[in-house]
């Protein structure tokens, strides 16, 4: 199942959820936000949100800003 995460295309494990994806990227999940196909995925729905073919995912975290 091909999805795009932070601009890079990759093969996602079948059955993976947004939560699985986030955990695969960082241990520190506080302060992380996820957008899926242009919509926010609230933290509470990460595990109940399965990844689907062609998903566009952005996994974001804090940086210093002006």
């Amino acid at each position, binding site marked *: 199942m091909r999805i795009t995460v*932070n601009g890079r295309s990759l093969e996602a494990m079948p059955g993976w959820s947004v939560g699985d994806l986030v955990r695969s990227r960082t241990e520190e999940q506080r302060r992380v936000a*996820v*957008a899926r196909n242009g*919509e926010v995925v609230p933290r509470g729905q990460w595990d109940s949100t399965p990844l689907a073919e062609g998903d566009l995912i952005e*996994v*974001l975290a*804090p*940086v*210093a800003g*002006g």
Partner: protein
Amino acid sequence: MDQLMIAGEKFESRLVLGTGGLPSLDVLDKVIHCSGTEMVTVALRRIEASTSGPLLSVLERCRVRLLPNTAGCMTAREAVLTAKLAREAFETSWVKLEVIGDEHTLLPDPVELLDAAEQLVADGFTVLPYTNDDPIMARRLADIGCAAVMPLGSPIGSGLGIRNPHNIALIREAVSVPVVLDAGIGTASDAALAMELGCDAVLLATAVTRAHDPELMATAMRDAVSAGRLAYRAGRIPRRWHAQASTQVSGLPEL
């Protein structure tokens, strides 16, 4: 006491600090401490590019309010989505709303900005929009429910100071919400001038973070904002074309 009040929140400090541009995060807490700020701006980026760990531990230690920005957004849609993601990440509904119209000047796009502001206000956000220095735009942003207006002094990071003090003063006349001078501050006298024009606060980043000595400049800005605010409250002398003696003439001896 002379406190700043934004959306019902009280602040002792009238300096909002942007954290971007520091050579390293090691000095961030010192800079925050020197500046006396109680609110700092932060942003979201892809997790690979982020520096969340050190950044957040510092910010939590400093107990400052976080003000997420939407820097880099060029449409209302991007800005609204970014604000919602920031609400998730930072657990705050406050947002510094930036919708940029041009990559060279980073000047705000009035049309996209108003659109985004209306959507976010409707969604319950506390919206602090980065806007141009047009009094009519400022009034429109206040009218649609923004918690403050943040007119620019000059382009972000330009250090050109307040190019049009007249407009800033007209904005102060035009709206009843707080006016926060945002962008363009280069040095202390710029920040003092902003406050003398009636601004309620100053937001700056580059002037401190890219100064030769960020800690010293942070202290300078703390004092400059205080000086400008006090001078505004104290009521300055009128300008005169000619001089006025500061030592009495009566009793002048004939020598």
